[in-house]
């Protein structure tokens, strides 16, 4: 790596040039994992894939704002970049896509991206939207009770903020000032339902006032902008000042999942226009402007990411699936009962 540029002094608080390049690498790696998942789906090798294209900025920014190894993450199903930036490996990601027995998230029981990686402080979630938000609050409450300096980051889409459980979670969190950060990845759609049919407001952050907590908006296609606001909220939470609701404005580049077809509810022009918001070339530009990366490094990183994803795919595909007996394990601590 060549010598660091002069502009270094102007880097955002807490981010070194190396970290910024690492963040870029995570975005690229995620994109490749994402594309691979869809390719495998089209090949009929996996029945389902969710995408995070358009969300890489917010997710990578948020991940780096946490103290890895200390803080907990209660993510949602669109958080591939968040997970890959928080210790999940491409092999682990691919194992969950193939639903193999040794899949560390759920042993092939859950849809992809529903996690549980407790050794890296990532919680399990179900597919039931917003149900995990109270869990995050309860975890934060537990950490506070035990006087552990842990912050819990809880993520969700803007559609999820309509659920009653979301409301209850934010209300509880604010009353009890739990060390949590609520991060809304606003991509303007809940499957096909546009934001204006989900809520009569423009900014999800405006909901914060109803709970007596700060509501902050950031550009979710910009990892550095997201990093900055999440970091401030994490510090606030860690200082015992209570939770924050952050709304990261981003977008969903592809259909909701491999089961959806956004052409039924979005015009081709609309979909085309999204391309200009792609967080990866944007961040590339930002890094280049500051002399933090060059075309050669970019090409090198992309090659490395591709190799990682290829290797992980081949490896994961070879792993054995669960067997019939696996159906019956882990029902209760004491096994199966009835």
């Amino acid at each position, binding site marked *: 790596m060549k010598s660091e540029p002069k502009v270094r002094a102007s880097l955002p608080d807490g981010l070194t040039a190396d970290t910024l390049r690492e963040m870029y690498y995570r975005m690229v790696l995620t994109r490749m994992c994402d594309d691979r998942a869809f390719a495998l789906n089209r090949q009929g090798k996996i029945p389902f894939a969710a995408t995070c294209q358009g969300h890489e900025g917010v997710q990578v920014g948020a991940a780096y704002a946490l103290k890895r190894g200390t803080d907990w993450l209660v993510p949602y199903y669109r958080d591939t970049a968040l997970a890959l930036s928080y210790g999940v490996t491409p092999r682990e990601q691919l194992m969950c896509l193939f639903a*193999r027995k040794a899949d560390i998230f759920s042993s092939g029981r859950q849809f992809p991206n529903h996690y549980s990686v407790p050794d890296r402080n990532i919680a399990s979630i179900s*597919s039931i*939207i917003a149900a995990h938000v109270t869990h995050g609050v309860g975890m934060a409450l537990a950490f506070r009770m035990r006087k552990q300096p842990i912050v819990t980051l809880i993520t969700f889409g803007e*559609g999820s903020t309509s659920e*009653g459980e979301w409301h209850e979670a934010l209300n509880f969190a604010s009353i009890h000032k739990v060390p949590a950060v609520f991060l809304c990845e606003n991509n303007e759609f809940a499957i096909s339902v546009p934001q204006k049919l*989900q809520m009569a407001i423009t900014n999800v952050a405006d909901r914060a006032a109803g709970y007596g907590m700060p509501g902050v908006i950031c550009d979710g296609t910009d990892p550095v902008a997201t990093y900055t606001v999440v970091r401030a909220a994490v510090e606030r939470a860690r200082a015992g000042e209570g939770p924050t609701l952050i709304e990261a404005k981003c977008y969903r580049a592809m259909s909701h999942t491999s089961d959806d077809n956004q052409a*039924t509810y979005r015009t081709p022009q609309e979909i085309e226009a999204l391309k200009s918001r792609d967080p990866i070339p944007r961040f590339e530009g930002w890094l280049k402007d500051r002399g933090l990366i060059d075309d050669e490094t970019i090409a090198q990183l992309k090659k490395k990411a591709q190799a990682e994803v290829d290797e992980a795919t081949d490896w994961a595909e070879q792993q054995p699936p669960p067997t019939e007996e696996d*159906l019956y394990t882990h029902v209760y601590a004491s096994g199966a009962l009835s």
Partner: protein
Amino acid sequence: MAVKTVLDGVRDAIHDEMKRDDRVFIMGEDVGPRGNVFLITKGFLDEFGRDRVIDTPLAEASIVGVAVGAAMAGMRPIAEIQFADFIYPAYNQIVGEAAKIRYRTAGAQTCPLVIRTPYGGGVRGALSHSVSVEALFYHVPGLKICVPSTPRDAQGMLVSAIRDEDPVLFLEHKRTYRLIKGEVPDSEFTVPIGVADVARTGKDLSVITYGLMRHFAVEAAETLARDGIDAEVIDLRSVRPLDRATILDSVRKTRRALVVHEDQKFGGIGAEVCAIIAEEALFELDAPLRRVCGPDVPAMGYAKEYEEAFMPNPERIGAAMRELAAF
């Protein structure tokens, strides 16, 4: 008669009732331009307009709760829950409210509401898109619960449900949507709620089932018939009300009963079916009752292996039938 899928039957029922009665409307997630995740309401928005095809926020309690209010005010709402697994947040509105409105007002207010939702496994839906929910609701007086499994029943019972004066939980097995085809009358018709269908007549044993398993049971019965075992297959079609008479008549005739459902065994619909038989026809049995059901584990997993191990199939059903016939 036209040949349709179950999905066609569901769509046509909603469509025709919306045309017939302007009190009928549909609300749910992605029922608008998307036309529902299975494309059931495709084109409805254009035909009926935004007032009657309502894309709701992602909030199930309010999907049902708002529909309950509209029903109390004289409309005939169809509330769609995108997948049965997402019905839990609406449990209070269904069990605590809708089912009790007639009773708690001594008939002064009513709740003619249909709550439709796709359920069941076999489509790689994993842990949260595969559940059978009927047993979580069938204990609730005031509710009716339909579990049709043929295109004709799906269409005819859904029309009955929409016209019913009481709340109906209408469960559509998502694996049957495109898999099961069959003839459906061209002119308006209804299939009553509360009457089982004898899917196959037989004399050696009775298989009591519903949903996707009806088809597997009939398939198994046809296989057994080649070996001279003549099974009767009863498709319950609704689990509340339950057609006690058809069950008991069949069991009294065959003297052997097997209950089959995809849903987990413990506390499932089969429990009540067995209890009714054991109360009413115990001394008319030549063999113990038997159940072939989903296993008592929390859910169907994503991997194909979990799904296959969870769901009863024609082979497993056939094996149990053979054993019972030989008892």
